[in-house]
């Protein structure tokens, strides 16, 4: 019964995800270690965001399964905090920074219940941790890109979990925000949390992260940065050797479509 204590934060077993018969992730089989800062890197279209979404249970799986602390994602909702890409929402939405952070508390509140004072205090503390306390009442469209990203991080912090999955938190942010995020990640690691980050800047990987996953549809390399982040592995991940695979699947997709419509 007590298996969940020893279970790794995230296990991914034989995971395959496909969009319209085009593979986005191919037979991923990994166990993410606890208490580490882990970068997911890979070229465009490598399936980095898809992997995060699959782990969070936000995308249908073609095969395989995911376990979060030994539980299926839909039963581990309060165990993992998700930071989506900043561009995924409309920042012109009529709300302020504090309200967005407060949304991080909703998962722990019962249906119909209003956030309590305690929730507001937690939200405020989280804004402070990302250096945004002065902007609590600011309409979110008036924040800069970096500030919006920090609000998103504060919202994840407000969930108070041991596992964080972040989709490109460093994309398009100013230097101050980048520093704030790095400090935050180290704090979280200091508290024993596990943080999985989709990252696009290869140069900073060894500096910011402990572990790295090199992804290009399949897991090219996974391990401590000093091992996984070798020139050879990078060449493998970024070398575009999967052209053949995509071509084959493109043909498969067309064939399926044309046979369904009877004009093949």
């Amino acid at each position, binding site marked *: 019964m007590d298996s969940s204590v020893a279970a790794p934060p995230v296990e991914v077993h034989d995971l395959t995800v496909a969009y319209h018969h085009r593979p986005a992730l191919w037979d991923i089989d990994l166990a993410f270690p606890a208490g580490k800062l882990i970068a997911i890197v890979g070229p465009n279209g490598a399936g980095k965001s898809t992997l995060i*979404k699959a782990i*969070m*249970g*936000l995308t249908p799986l073609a095969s395989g399964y995911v376990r979060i602390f030994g539980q299926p994602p839909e039963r581990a*909702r*309060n165990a*993992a*905090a*998700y930071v*989506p890409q900043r561009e*995924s*929402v*409309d920042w012109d*939405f*009529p*709300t*302020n920074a504090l*309200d*967005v952070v407060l*949304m*991080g508390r*909703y*998962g722990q*509140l019962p*249906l*119909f219940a*209003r*956030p309590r004072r305690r929730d507001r205090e937690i939200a405020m503390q989280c804004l402070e941790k990302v250096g945004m306390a002065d902007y609590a009442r600011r*309409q979110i*469209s008036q924040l800069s890109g970096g500030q919006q990203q920090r609000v998103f991080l504060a*919202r994840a912090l407000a*969930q108070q979990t041991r596992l964080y999955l972040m989709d490109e938190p460093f994309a398009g942010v100013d230097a101050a925000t980048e520093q704030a995020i790095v400090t935050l990640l180290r704090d979280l690691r200091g508290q024993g949390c596990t943080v999985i980050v989709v990252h696009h800047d290869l140069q900073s990987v060894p500096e910011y992260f402990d572990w790295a996953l090199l992804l290009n549809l399949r897991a090219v390399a996974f391990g401590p940065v000093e091992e996984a982040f070798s020139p050879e592995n990078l060449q493998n991940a970024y070398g575009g050797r999967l052209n053949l695979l995509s071509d084959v699947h493109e043909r498969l997709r067309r064939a399926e479509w044309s046979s369904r419509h009877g004009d093949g």
Partner: protein
Amino acid sequence: MAMDDVAASWVRFFTFSSVNVAYVAIGCVLLGAAAGMVGCFAFLRKRSLLGDALAHAALPGICVAFLLTGSKDPVVILLGAVASCWIGALTVDWITRCTRCKEDSALGIVLSVFFGVGILLLTHIQHSGNAAQAGLDRFLFGQAAGLVARDVKILAGTAVLLCCVVALLYKEFKVILFDPDFARAAGLPVRRLEIALATVIVLAVGIGLQAVGVVLMAAMLVTPAAAARYWTDRLSAMLALAAVLGGVSGALGAWASYVAARMPTGPWMVVCVTGLFFASFLLAPGRGLAARLLRLRRFRRKTAVENLLRTLYQFGEAGQDWNTPRSLPELLERRGASMRELRRTLARLGRAGLVSEAAPGMFTLTADGAARGARVTRVHRLWEVYLTRKLEIAPDRVHDDAEEIEHVLTPELERRLAETLEYPERDPHGSRIPRAGRISISQGT
């Protein structure tokens, strides 16, 4: 005479001189308010067209309900309309998921096909010789005058129900509108909440059909929300304001149909709500057109004022003498503005105590004016240094950009700029950069 009539009808209408008038007025206000509030969700979801498709999709349901029961009882009609709306919504969902059509095409298809079938059924009913059918065509454009006690009770009941649902699920609706992926990841039952939200919208459409009609109901959903968005940045305030705007349009529409009994109510309400929308678009503080133009004008004035101060400052730089008055032609030559503009700017500077007219047509900077002029010059030159050093832009290309930037840089940015550049002495053209804080120009007597 005509004015008296209008005034009298106002009084008769708004004092509820007859019980029927009261029903009509209350019914229209309630439905306007309910639709306005609920419409905010459709609007923020960027699904405004869904409301239109759903309203049109209600028509076949109304006709089928009548064909099956032979009655025009509001409950029967509402149930028929709601069922038909739901089928429409599910069809949109199915088309987007299972065919190559995108959502806009799916909405278009559902809207026109359902409405077409509805018209077909309506025509069939009208030619069937059934005496009870009279008035069924009101559901096209709405006829508030036909509202009776029972209609209003049902309308009020539904409106109260909608308010309760929105109040209870406020935080859930907010998060699924803003960030549905996050809501799912945080463990909220997003699918069920979306069904609840769709039901709320369908019910709001349903209660409006009798007074507004299927053709125009969408406007009562979307327009109050769009108008309210101009006034506020808070969702709760937006819901309340949209409800008020919808309610006011409802009252005005009901009054119009009371005065001109054969007028359909729906178009009147839509005209009123559109008027309110335009008023918001023009007058709202912050986001409204008037406020934006005002800000633009203020910025243009500030630009003209600061440019002239900089010109006057630069005149004085050569001999470190800011006391010699400058004539209009001299200034005109440097500034490239029209004489009228120049005079107006000088007058403004004079009123602000930044420039004084030493002799008729001769102008000199006051101490304050010189300080402001030095500051603008400083920012201008700092920015030129920044562009040439950090962005490696040729010195002869940086002036125009600095001309714009000098008016928007805050003292904080100015400080950081100077720090980054390590307090340069001279700009790329060799001119000395005035120092910050220590700008005091001795004023001769």
